[in-house]
């Protein structure tokens, strides 16, 4: 199977081609590129927590409204934490 990035790139290519099914207008694509470039230019990536930093502990509700504590999880082993902006 194609890698995740290959599939994302394929989607991006299809979206940015302006062809169906998305038919994205050129201005829309330009606007998205501009926003990404501006965000990168703020240097935000360099300010995020990085390797060797201490990870903050967190307690959050999961999809079943059960409270999950990162301290409990880490006691059992390493944790992969993915931040997802949502599917909106």
């Amino acid at each position, binding site marked *: 199977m194609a*890698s*995740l990035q290959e599939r994302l790139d394929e989607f991006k290519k299809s979206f940015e081609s302006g062809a169906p099914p998305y038919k994205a207008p050129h201005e829309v694509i330009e606007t998205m590129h501009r926003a990404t470039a501006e965000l990168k230019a703020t240097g935000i990536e360099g300010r995020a927590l990085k*390797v060797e930093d201490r990870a903050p502990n967190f307690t959050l509700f999961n999809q079943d409204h059960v409270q999950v504590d990162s301290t409990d*999880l880490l006691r059992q082993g390493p944790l992969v934490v993915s931040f997802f902006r949502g*599917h*909106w």
Partner: protein
Amino acid sequence: MELEAPQQIHSEVRALGARIVVITPELERYTRALHKKLNLSFDILTDLHLKVAEQFRLVFTLPDYLRDLYKSFGSTLDRFNDEPEYRLPMPARYIIDKAGTIRAANVNADYTIRPEPSETLRQLRTLSAAAAD
């Protein structure tokens, strides 16, 4: 697409003694449906008003012109995330060891670029090999 990728590696991640959690500002009533639809074996945690994302210093505000564009598509972040100011986390993937130290960090302001799941596995294997020494 981006939640299916961690699902594909989750059993291998578990075999390495680790686990995956996804953190999103999306409200629980939406994560519940998404979790069920994709039949995920890891938790999606709701980070209401981005309190945890702020601590990882990942939060940015969508510029007005982009907010207007998304609204014109019918995307309403205020409804899904209760974020009237249209703040979002940058996509990021961290590996945290048992001691609570970050061992791998992958952060990109370009949300069309994501770390490969195979890379996550490779890093976890390195970590578990180091722990065994």
